[in-house]
């Protein structure tokens, strides 16, 4: 602790768990947007990863409440948020929006895979057949029209899902931005900053995994997709970082009362995590790499390595951004006179080990899903086979 903090502020209330939650819902929103760019807006370059994006969004969504439940003082009462919600609170939206969004994504996936499940039902026997029929809600008809209806439903849900996804992640930004008591958080821009940042993280994780998995499984990769992702990543990261910087720069320019303490925060406790890592290494770095990749004619392997590195750095950047916002805002005292400190323990209930586990599990789950319904390679193999035939 340095300077003076109010006695109750010595202890940091929102831990690394609360850093993880917006990070995971950010991945959800970003992945969903990418999926919708294909399913709704028909950007063909994204077709190879469309299904993967959709399923990733759902898997991350399943695990989003986990850090929150771990953090709550009384997790057994978590349902109170839907039983006696106080709608004046931004946080009260969580229960309902999350539920509605989960339903939307689930059924988008359901309609997407319905055809495949019907085929599996036809070939299955015994318990597996009964389970498949149950999961198909007993309706096993399949023909051209049902397929068309399924595709239409997917498109419709993708469309409806976009605003809901934006609300699901945007409300977190609003939650922070509307806290007038905290000079680091309070800004009307927070809602938009979080959304842009989320989209960046979503594109980054999809890019990273697409490149990683296809490399590991020695599958052919669609260069067109990578180029599209590279451009999207570059564009959205420019938007996200510009918004983040605008926010800070305008406070620095106006020099209202809070600038003095924020300057000390940025130059002190947050210097390494914010200035050095988030801004320079993980924002400027990817910006230059992606710019080189998009504007210059680079050999393909180099360009793809740049993309991979940028995606990895941006994944870290978004995590750092969440850390710097959530933890940074609590390091500074509302007395405007001092700072406290926070370092999560390794084995704490809300510590580093638990945080690591919570982040890793969705990826492991995706891997299992991939084993049952492989995400990548079918399109490319089919087009390669088709080319060979001709």
């Amino acid at each position: 602790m340095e300077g003076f903090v109010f006695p109750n502020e010595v202890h940091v209330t929102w831990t690394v768990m609360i850093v993880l939650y917006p990070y995971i819902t950010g991945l959800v929103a970003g992945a969903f947007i990418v999926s919708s760019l294909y399913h709704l807006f028909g950007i063909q370059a994204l077709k190879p990863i469309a299904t993967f994006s959709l399923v990733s969004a759902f898997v991350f969504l399943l695990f989003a409440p986990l850090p929150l439940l771990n953090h709550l003082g009384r997790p057994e009462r978590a349902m109170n948020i839907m039983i006696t919600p106080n709608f004046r609170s931004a946080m009260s939206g969580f229960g309902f929006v999350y539920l509605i969004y989960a339903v939307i994504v689930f059924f988008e996936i359901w309609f997407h895979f319905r055809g495949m499940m019907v085929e599996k039902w036809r070939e299955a026997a015994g318990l597996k057949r009964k389970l498949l029929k149950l999961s198909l809600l007993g309706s096993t008809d399949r023909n051209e029209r049902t397929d068309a209806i399924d595709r239409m439903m997917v498109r419709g849900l993708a469309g409806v899902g976009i605003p809901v996804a934006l609300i699901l992640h945007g409300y977190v930004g609003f939650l922070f931005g509307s806290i007038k008591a905290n000079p680091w958080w309070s800004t009307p821009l927070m809602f938009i900053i979080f959304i842009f940042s989320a989209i960046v993280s979503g594109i980054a994780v999809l890019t990273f995994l697409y490149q990683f998995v296809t490399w590991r499984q020695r599958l052919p990769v669609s260069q067109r997709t990578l180029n599209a992702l590279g451009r999207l990543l570059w564009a959205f990261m420019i938007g996200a970082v510009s918004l983040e910087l605008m926010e800070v720069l305008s406070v620095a320019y106006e020099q209202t009362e809070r600038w003095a303490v924020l300057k000390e925060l940025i130059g002190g406790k947050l210097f390494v995590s914010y200035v050095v890592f988030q801004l320079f290494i993980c924002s400027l770095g990817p910006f230059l790499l992606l710019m080189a990749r998009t504007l210059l004619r680079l050999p393909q392997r180099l360009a793809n390595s740049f993309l991979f590195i940028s995606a990895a750095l941006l994944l870290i950047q978004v995590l750092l951004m969440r850390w710097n916002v959530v933890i940074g805002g609590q390091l500074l005292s509302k007395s405007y006179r001092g700072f406290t400190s926070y370092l999560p323990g390794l084995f704490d209930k809300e510590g580093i080990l638990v945080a690591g586990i919570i982040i890793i599990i969705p990826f492991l789950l995706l891997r299992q899903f991939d084993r049952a319904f492989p995400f990548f390679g079918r399109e490319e193999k089919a087009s390669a086979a088709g080319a060979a035939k001709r």
Partner: protein
Amino acid sequence: MGDNTDLNRRRFIQLALAGATGAFVGTLTAFGAPGEKPELRSMQDLSKLEWGFLVDTTRCIGCGSCVRACSAENDVPDSFYRTWVERYEIDKDHEVHVDSPQGAIESFKTDQCEKQRLAKGFFVPKLCNHCRASACTQVCPVGASFHSPDGVVLIDRSRCVGCGYCVQACPYGCRYIDHDIGTADKCTLCYHRLHRDLTTACATACPRQARICGDLRAPDSPLRRVLDQRRYGLLKPEMGTDPKCYYLGLDLEVK
């Protein structure tokens, strides 16, 4: 015999938690001497009162009696504070030094500045401001933080999920999460004492009459009389929380 400086803080009665469901009418025992359950007036009668608080920073000596009394009376967990005392020392170069060692629960042991360098020094006790437009009740997602009809901001411990949003939203740093029970906690203006015709533990304990709790609407209450005669300030009025804790002798340096 009294060699330890800590007063014995024994754990007294735990709050009996009411069930979350079911309505029940208050028991109709007579108003009480300590030991008898007081009768709560009707909600309509309660809304005719409005509790407020006054802190006289010109009289405070920073002894910490209020912090100790509150901690004992309300079973406040260690290292968290429902009330605390801050000390301000402003030196001749206009540098401001502020401290509050453990909320001043054992007062202050040393000066911050040397006497020759000191221009001005004073103490500011702080507590929940029981704001009329409190940020904490606005942000509680489950409606556990609420205003009583007589203007006291309270926490429904059977409903609170311990999310900590209210702790972040309070501009004054009055709230904390009680990790033993997993819910948010804060000054209740000794609500259990107010309804037994007693005043708050901190106001009772203060040997300098620096703290007054009273009804803002009663024209003859000691609180109202002081407010009508003296000049006072509020903490962070620009936040729009409309606090009901008034400070006599409030210095600009106090945030």
